[in-house]
């Protein structure tokens, strides 16, 4: 039975080869080529390491640094708040927990650009949605265009990715293990830190990867909430491709790709049973 269904995945595999693997390899080749513009190879293929000069630009280095920093902060925030939500849900007596999860994911059914634009409506000083509820037309502060706005946007957008795996790993903890811990004399706080937290750590790791990676490579959120003032590596890559400088764009994209692959490798080592979402 299973085998028959497995064949249904064949088209998807080809799809994956053609649209994911091949472009990645192509980008890998491109980063070593000397192409003045687009894919114009009328002057012949020339090997070069010139593209790597882009990595010595202060803006590129800072963009990489910022991307890691912002993604890191957003991930930490997501772990803290995501865990609280998942734990509260796990402990609640509510019958239909699935419904709560659906409500959590519901905003993700709308387009990410729309969500980001409406977040911008929360953060700007003029015509602020929240302030106008209190009859205030404009405020002195302007959060839009600050690092705070970008981190807040990343956190709000990706925190559901954290809640799901943590909740899943919490659900898998056997009730009797908790009872045993209490029987053996642990307080509730000790039980949490010595039993529950370690047992749900897989969920935290997977969730972290799932929040960290899109934060690292995204460009729409910093563009909109940072008002073009915050440069993350995703923005540099986007600008390179827009400018038809495919070689430099490929170089930067491949670096991000390597980081992503390494992270997934780490997850696969930790989560051998594949019980989390990845």
């Amino acid at each position, binding site marked *: 039975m299973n085998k028959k269904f497995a064949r249904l995945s064949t088209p998807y595999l080809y799809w994956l080869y053609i649209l994911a693997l091949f472009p990645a390899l192509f980008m890998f080749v491109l980063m070593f080529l000397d192409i*003045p*513009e*687009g894919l*114009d190879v009328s002057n012949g293929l020339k090997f070069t390491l010139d593209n790597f000069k*882009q990595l010595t*630009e*202060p*803006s*590129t280095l*800072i*963009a990489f640094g*910022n991307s890691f920093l912002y993604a890191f902060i957003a991930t930490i925030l997501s772990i803290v708040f995501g865990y609280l939500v998942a734990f509260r849900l796990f402990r609640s007596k509510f019958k239909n927990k699935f419904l709560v999860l659906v409500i959590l994911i519901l905003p993700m059914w709308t387009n990410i650009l729309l969500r980001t634009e409406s977040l911008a409506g929360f953060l*700007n*000083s*003029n*015509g602020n949605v929240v302030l106008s509820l209190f009859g205030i037309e*404009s405020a002195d502060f*302007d959060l*839009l*265009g600050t690092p705070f706005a970008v981190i807040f946007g990343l956190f709000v957008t990706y925190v559901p990715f954290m809640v799901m795996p943590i909740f899943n790993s919490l659900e898998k903890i056997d009730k009797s293990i908790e009872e045993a811990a209490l029987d053996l004399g642990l307080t509730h706080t000790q039980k949490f830190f010595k039993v529950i937290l370690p047992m749900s750590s897989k969920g935290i790791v997977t969730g972290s990867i799932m929040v960290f990676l899109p934060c690292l490579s995204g460009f729409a959120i910093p563009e909109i909430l940072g*008002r*073009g*003032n*915050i*440069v993350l590596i995703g923005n*540099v890559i986007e*600008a*390179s491709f*827009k*400018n*038809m*400088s495919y070689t*430099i764009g490929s170089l930067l994209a491949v670096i991000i790709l390597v980081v992503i692959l390494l992270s997934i490798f780490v997850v696969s080592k930790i989560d051998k049973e594949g019980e989390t979402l990845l």
Partner: protein
Amino acid sequence: MAKRSKKYLLLVALMMIISVFVSGCSSKETLLFLNWGEYINYDMVEAFEKEYNCNVIVDLADSNELFYAKVKSGTTAYDLVCPAEYMVQKMYMNDLLQPLYSNDEELAKYFPTLANGKVTFMDGVNQIAEKLDISMKETLGDSYQTGEIEKYYMPYFWGTFGLMYNKQLEIFEDKQTWDTKDMDNPILLSDTPDGHPDILQRNNAWKIFFFDETADEVLPTSIRVGQYSAVRFTYGAVMTYLDGTPNTPVNDGIERFRETLSRRKYTQWAADELKHSIEAHEIDMAFAYTGDCLDMVYLRFLERGLTYETLDFFTYAPTETMAHIDALVIPKNARHADLARKFINFLLIPDNAWLNNRDIGYLPPLEQVYDMIVNQKAPNVSEDSYLYFEETEEEMFWRENWAKAIQAIEPREGMDLTPFSYFETEDINRLNNIVNNIKVSK
């Protein structure tokens, strides 16, 4: 197993065949038009479709570079593309275009209104076209025959670049300060209709925008300024302010570009979003296409009933500024070149161009259309025509304000309009790096 996979294949093949039939069912010709967003009036398209019994599919791109890439790759055979003049030049030099007409006979055959002089181009268009021709000659040398490029494009809309600003701000109202601030540069005040309180109407408007020391008292740092994020335009604006031309070679201008942009912290770096930010009063001043501003102004007239005088924002083009012609060209691999010519000719009939212009804030290339708008005239047609607009109070209100607004962005006499020249990818990369370095250092 083999049998089953054959069945699957058959199914897939069947679906493909069906889809081909469904899409190809109509015998109508289809015109594939690659255009900018919000850059065509679909009423006009519909009229064209009816008249020539065809379909028009409008695809969108958001940069001249993308136009070039799409035409060059040739994966979709577009029949009509609308790049700016410098990209027309590049497409021509890379042999991607076919002529709209190759001699006077063909001109008369395809574009009769143009051939017999019933329509003529506005001065600004001619000025830009001339500069484009000179630039072609400089690049290609003797192998280029003067005027050759004209056969390859037809102006669609044109306009200048300017500074869009919030009119409600006190600083822009206090005419006294502004007028007396710079006695060396005379102020041109009389050129807009009804003495529009155009406070930016100074020769050195660029100075204010780029926070020149001589202007710092006039425009304090608390003013929120938006800067264009497409570096070719940013660089063009800086160099127009410094050298009077947007086309200073990057090697000569790059250090000054860095210095000038570092003076101020820009509240927002964006492209089309800038006009929306001005509208939402999130920024006070930004560098943008003047036509883009008028797009927003038209909505103010039509949706909020504001008049030209009571507008809350407007735009001002400095005396020395950049200008552009967006032109219709036919790529070499076009499948329906003749239909594309018909489309171009359709727009060379002033009434149709007038209809197209109702939705778009840019300037019409045809003098006749401009005159119609300014004189608040509509096409002289019967009631059942697609060109008929009942002269209601609302319509007359719109026409009156439309006329004033378009007159205000029509280049004044004595203005120096320069089109952009094409920059190599490598140069743009360098400019991008500089802008990013400035952004991260703030």
